[in-house]
């Protein structure tokens, strides 16, 4: 070992140990409720704001906010349209085509097996775009050829062995080559060969290849194997890129909050095709607007109509000709009140659920698997009068019955309180003080559910800036992954592996089955398996072992204090400091800045915000 080049951090023990106690006091989450009355130290405010209103500070962010002024910076974040967007972001999002399409065109360009089968029988429409049409036609031809071969075969068997695709030296390059050698090799293969190679590789190894080809090729490889998988790829990549690169950070944090509040599960049937338009048109435009608009957009979205079954809900006496009797489906009505608006204790009864369900009969989808657009179908609608939360909705309202329900719910005091509390849980603490929630709810009622105004009340409250709020939140897996990438100032050329890491930590993106969405409470994220995954992710990121993510360690000097400062943006806790000190003192292995960085990202300190 002695002869080897080893990069050993120079120890500056005296400085490293200084400020030990001061740090210990400052960093601990406060326990008592009284702590919401106590102001946090002035010098913690900027970091606190960055921790809560962004996906974590990048190097230089603290200084930038100080320069702009904290108040002004928050005001900017509340008005994202006034912030000029990071030019890098547009370039990253540009290839993610499915995010820009209508629901109908998405099904056509990313057809699942059933649609390919239907296309083969001439029972489904092809994409309008000529290039996309030609590609889908090739898929269908491939399908027909396969079908003709063996009716008993479940999986396509005609995999070319890898030794028929690549020479031995090429296989070695793929296994052990440098990134540049891999990139060169894969670039030299034609598209056909690349596809064969991709198909021949076991699933986990495919990602390894994807890191070394351009985004367009990645999408194409995925598409040839399972077209709808590209939609999940596009959604996940965009979510990661926006969280990492957007200058409009609060908007992205809120888009995450509101998508989660109105959660839709990617893998429920047609929702795969409906999700991009849902996030784009129903959620994102309204995150700082009026709640009623957001609620209305989700209620009418094909994604939600499909996810919570309202599209199949039919007035019991109005079964259309030729269809099987289905009757009333209460799923949406129940979740609408329990999760989207009033809250489970918001004062509604089972009778209200049924009445609301009756109001929404006829709110349906043209054809979920081929067209996807919202449609009101009067023939399915319950024409009688209804009573919702004590308000009579007279007979004959038609489509307006649903709008009336949304009006009642959006302006209900229970909704104001329930959602204010949800926001305070996300932004302030797991158990936010009732006084804060009451003030936010008051703003809601006064300002007609203006979400920007409600946010403002919260961000100007003494509770937000109190000891009780300081470092009171444990990062969710997505927040942990993104904040680590931002703290390391990593370059993301391939975001999908970060989405996979997030899934590994327990939060697969767009794949929360239940309508409740993901919890933001620490009890739900702090467990053994997740903690080990966090540590492993931290080490892998710092040591540049995640494909497509580049971390530049050269900005770190040999001083561990500097490494710590530039990752935590604050002093480290005594136990973390002591543990790293011990690792430095033990000479039997090299301690690199990357190792220190990995240890810090996996430390208890970095799991909080």
């Amino acid at each position: 070992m002695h002869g080897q080049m080893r990069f050993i951090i120079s120890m500056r023990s005296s400085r490293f140990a200084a400020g030990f106690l001061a740090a210990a006091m400052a960093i601990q989450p406060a326990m008592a409720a009284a702590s919401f009355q106590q102001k946090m130290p002035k010098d913690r405010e900027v970091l606190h704001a960055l921790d809560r209103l962004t996906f974590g500070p990048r190097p230089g962010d603290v200084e930038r906010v100080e320069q702009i002024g904290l108040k002004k910076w928050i005001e900017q974040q509340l008005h994202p349209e006034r912030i000029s967007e990071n030019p890098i972001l547009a370039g990253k999002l540009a290839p993610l085509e499915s995010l820009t399409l209508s629901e109908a065109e998405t099904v056509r360009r990313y057809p699942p097996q059933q649609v390919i089968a239907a296309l083969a029988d001439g029972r489904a429409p092809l994409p309008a775009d000529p290039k996309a049409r030609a590609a889908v036609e090739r898929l269908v031809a491939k399908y027909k050829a396969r079908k003709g071969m063996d009716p008993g075969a479940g999986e396509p068997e005609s995999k070319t062995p890898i030794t028929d695709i690549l020479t031995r030296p090429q296989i070695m390059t793929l296994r052990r080559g440098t990134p540049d050698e891999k990139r060169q090799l894969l670039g030299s293969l034609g598209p056909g060969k690349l596809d064969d190679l991709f198909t021949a590789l076991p699933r986990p190894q495919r990602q390894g290849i994807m890191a070394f080809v351009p985004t367009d090729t990645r999408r194409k490889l995925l598409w040839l194997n399972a077209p709808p998988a590209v939609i999940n790829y596009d959604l996940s990549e965009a979510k990661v890129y926006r969280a990492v690169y957007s200058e409009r950070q609060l908007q992205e944090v809120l888009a995450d909050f509101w998508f989660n509040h109105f959660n839709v599960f990617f893998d429920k049937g047609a929702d795969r095709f409906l999700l991009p338009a849902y996030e784009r048109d129903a959620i994102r435009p309204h995150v700082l607007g009026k709640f009623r608009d957001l609620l209305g957009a989700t209620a009418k979205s094909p994604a939600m109509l499909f996810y919570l079954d309202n599209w199949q809900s039919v007035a019991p006496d109005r079964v259309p000709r030729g269809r099987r009797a289905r009757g009333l489906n209460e799923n949406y009505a129940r979740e609408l009140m329990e999760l989207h608006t009033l809250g489970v204790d918001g004062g509604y009864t089972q009778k209200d659920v049924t009445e609301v369900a009756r109001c929404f009969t006829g709110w349906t989808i043209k054809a979920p698997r081929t067209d996807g657009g919202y449609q009101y179908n009067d023939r399915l609608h319950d024409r009688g009068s209804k009573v919702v939360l004590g308000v009579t909705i007279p007979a004959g309202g038609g489509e307006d019955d649903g709008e009336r329900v949304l009006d009642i719910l959006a302006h209900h005091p229970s909704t104001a309180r329930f959602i204010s509390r949800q926001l305070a849980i996300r932004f302030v603490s797991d158990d936010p003080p009732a006084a804060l929630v009451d003030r936010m709810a008051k703003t809601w009622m006064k300002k007609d559910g203006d979400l920007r105004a409600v946010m403002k009340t919260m961000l100007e409250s003494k509770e937000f800036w109190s000891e009780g709020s300081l470092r009171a939140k444990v990062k969710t897996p997505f927040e942990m992954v993104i904040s680590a990438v931002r703290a390391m100032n990593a370059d993301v050329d391939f975001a999908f592996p970060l989405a996979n890491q997030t899934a590994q930590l327990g939060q697969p993106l767009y794949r929360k089955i239940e309508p409740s969405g993901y919890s933001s409470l620490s009890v739900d994220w702090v467990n053994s398996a997740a903690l080990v995954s966090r540590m492993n992710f931290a080490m892998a990121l710092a040591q540049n072992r995640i494909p497509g993510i580049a971390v530049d360690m050269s900005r770190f000097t040999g001083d561990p204090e500097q490494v710590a400062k530039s990752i935590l943006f604050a002093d480290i806790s005594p136990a973390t400091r002591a543990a790293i000190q011990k690792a430095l003192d033990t000479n039997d292995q090299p301690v690199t800045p990357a190792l220190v960085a990995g240890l810090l990202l996996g430390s208890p300190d970095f799991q909080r915000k």
Partner: protein
Amino acid sequence: MHTRRFFFKSSAAAMFGFGAMPGWLSRAASRTVRGRKVLVAIFQRGAVDGLNMVVPFGDPNYYALRPAIAIPKPDGTGESAIDLDEFFGLHPSLAALKPVYDSKVLAIVEAAGSPDPTRSHFDAQDYMESGTPGRKATADGWLNRALPQVAGRPSPVRAVSLGTALPRALRGHNDALAMSNLNQFQVREASASGTFESMYEGALDQTMKGAGRETFEALKMVQTIQRQPYAPANQARYPNGRFGQALQQIARLIKADVGLEVAFTDVGGWDTHVNEVGARPSQGQLANLLGNFGQSLAAFQQDLGDRMADVLVVTMSEFGRTARENGNRGTDHGHANVMLVMGGDVRGGKVYGDWPGLGPEQLYEERDLAVTTDFRDVLGELVAGGLGNRDLAAVFPGYTPRFRNLL
């Protein structure tokens, strides 16, 4: 067998020091005295065709409904059902389970399922895993609620799912681990592991400190298992594939006596709308899946040997498939299904459940096998009799399971 078990116990004890042996470890060591069993729940995702998995060849309607894809009556060849009781027979690809059935370790429950009428995979899986059909608001899963309350700290590996994410069934307030593989449950850099441990150990942040302590205990526990090279006993051979490997890892955890109480794993691919049955009964999508499924279960039983007396395995699937075949040599979403129960103390070698029949007036909604045994009747009996948790009102709220005397 005994020497190996003794070794594990003593090595685990040595790891913590005899004086500091945590409560769960001494409980694990006295497991046999307690007589509680490890409950292994297996989910066949996608809705397996129970009518071709365990074939009702004695019901003439079966053949009338499935002219192209029925499994022929037992004729001694590998292209026919394997007779169990002159009415039901196993799919020929489940041949590996016949000796298990004959040795009375395997019981079959026919026409079992959920009372909820949904034919959505998503909803039906959700209901079966929450254990509350028709109730979406249930936040946790039946298997998590099934864990008995214990005094003191439970084993860090008392509830394990083999798979990347924690399944719905195991979510809840009791700690549960998800790992895709025992060998992957580790801090990859050994040197960093110690540093992480002291960071969390010394943290003033009580949440992190507590989680850290549990994590590193679990890591050490699993490490002692990882260090032992594992060879399945009794010449058991697990087939390739994720499911067989998952069962092997569960067997490994059981044999290590580290306090495992419940385990979960799943196996997908059963949504056989097209080409369920190939040119011959032993071919096609279902035959391939069942071959792997049956061999994996048989290997698990063989590997555990006498230890099967401490184990209960139960299989389930969200709903059955249509009694009638469709136009693509497949079947569509139906209602009742079949469940398997395996274990040393199971009254096996018998097909349980009332057979509702496949006649036109007997079918549920004129198309599917009707449910005569609620899936919670089966699970409830295993939870009470196996895990020793008699508070079934908490495990299956709003439902009182009726035992079928499987145990």
